[in-house]
């Protein structure tokens, strides 16, 4: 498959600008963790995954579960750019009353959202359920799951990790967005999960470590994951929280802090200049 990396970079930048505008517009939402996963979402939705925005329920579609549901702005902006709904909705709906775009993903309200999420730790189990269901019905589709590194504190993630390897779910690939920060502080300060890749390996997963902002590395990992038939694949993606806007990068506060007018303007200028 020939991939136009330059075009994907442009799409990723558009998605970042949409995220910044959405969160500034409503003065609510999670910027940092949304920015850290943008390249992965772009690679999935603009190259890797098989789906039809006009027929979002087609049974043989690939599925994506955003386990770190607070980064819904990244998913919504990606889905809008992928054609699931008009882009104007991003500003008129997100986090507003009577709207289709809740603060955290709601599969019954937003076209393209495969699973309701927001409470951390649950997404991989639901992704496993999808993968099991697809296998049982001989549907050759794949399931992708995005897990935060802070989210690895949740015990259920490890229950699900064991389930996926026990059932040899080679149709699932989980991205671990290792941006190194969580709500309160650095992940290593809050609760050090030590060697993340080793943990997934110990749970029976095929583990690939990449730079989560590098499209070539993301695609190489996705190709490897697709070809791997002995079980599930974990793609440990090293990323930068707040990636794309220099003064937001690696700043704990931008987990949930909304930008001021000045920060919005400076951030937007920076993204526009890319």
């Amino acid at each position: 498959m020939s991939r136009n990396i330059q075009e994907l970079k442009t799409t990723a930048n558009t998605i970042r600008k949409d995220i910044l505008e959405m969160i500034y517009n409503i003065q609510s939402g999670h910027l940092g963790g949304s920015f850290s996963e943008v390249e992965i979402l772009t690679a999935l939705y603009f190259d890797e995954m098989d789906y039809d925005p006009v027929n979002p329920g087609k049974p043989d579609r690939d599925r994506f579960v955003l386990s770190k549901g607070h980064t819904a702005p990244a998913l919504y902006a990606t889905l809008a750019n992928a054609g699931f709904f008009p882009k104007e909705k991003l500003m008129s709906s997100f986090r507003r009353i009577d709207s289709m775009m809740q603060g955290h993903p709601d599969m019954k309200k937003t076209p393209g959202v495969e699973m309701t999420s927001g409470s951390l730790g649950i997404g991989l189990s639901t992704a496993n359920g999808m993968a099991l269901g697809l296998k049982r019905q001989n549907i050759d589709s794949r399931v992708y799951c995005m897990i935060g590194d802070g989210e690895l504190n949740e015990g259920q993630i490890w229950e699900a990790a064991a389930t996926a390897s026990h059932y040899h779910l080679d149709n699932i690939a989980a991205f671990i967005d290792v941006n190194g920060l969580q709500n309160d502080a650095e992940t290593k300060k809050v609760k050090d999960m030590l060697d993340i890749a080793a943990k997934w390996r110990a749970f029976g997963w095929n583990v690939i470590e990449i730079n989560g902002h590098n499209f070539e590395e993301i695609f190489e990992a996705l190709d490897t994951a697709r070809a791997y038939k002995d079980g599930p694949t974990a793609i440990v993606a090293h990323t930068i929280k707040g990636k794309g806007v220099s003064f937001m990068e690696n700043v704990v506060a931008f987990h949930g802090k909304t930008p001021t007018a000045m920060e919005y303007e400076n951030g937007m200028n920076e993204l526009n200049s890319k």
Partner: protein
Amino acid sequence: MKKSFRSTLIDAILSGAEEYPNMVVLNADSARALKLTDFSAKYPDRMYNVGISETDLVSTAAGLSTTGLIPVVVGFSMFVSEKPFEQIRQAIAYPNLNVKIVATHSGLCVGQDGATHQALEDIALLRTLPNFKVFAAADVTETKAAMKAMLAYDGPAYLRLGRDLAEDIFEDEKPFRPGGADLLRNGSDVTIAACGLMVEQALMAAVALKSEGINASVINAYSIKPLPEELLLQKAKETGAFVTAEDHMKTGGLGGAICEYLSETCPVPVIRIGVDDHFGESGTQDDLYKKYRLTADDIAAAAKKAIRMKGLV
């Protein structure tokens, strides 16, 4: 004749599986105890045992349902309702997914295993969840009817069963529908609404009351959510006094639900029979029912009290 919930549930599951080829069963290392091994022997590719990980269990079921399968989660009540309550809320109830949870070992009837395994709060928890329907079966026949009714509609449901022996209340088949109930006895002095194993006790209480000249209606209130509102309202008007009976905390259970409903529609005295703000303990079911006042005698005494209170509310 008495039959065991845990050893006959498999019959209800097998007949459901026969009717619905897209039904799958999930459990968390309780397959042997509940004879689910008979299911996996017959349908090896339709059962998932996720091991002792109940939050993963119910969330995996949620994911399975999105692919068009009908997951039936089977296990002990404490571990398939109370432990993974938040996951049930987030991944099943909120997105309104077609997952059925069937729970054995509900209430003090668990017996010797003691308080840690006696789910006395499950009705209270599950019935607060929008989209969820909550049922309890009184015997083995009703378990089958409940399973059939649950599989027939799209949406989440919780079925509460006892652990071991239940007296046969019903023969052959019985009707079962969300919002339904059975009027097992008709009397004009007081209404006893019971669910699960307490239906048998309620019927015994009604016989004892009859010998004292008191005519009690007995309702098998198997649908706790939605409530059988029409019948409850009719009986409140006709008898003017209620007793509820359940192997569950007094707070939040069937009694709580009926109090909530009647207080807003037709306030009459309601005396609740249930566990009174206390954890259980080890003991035989009979000893526990005596100690925690869940017997026919307790129901009969409550009925007389409710009758005396008529006109006071």
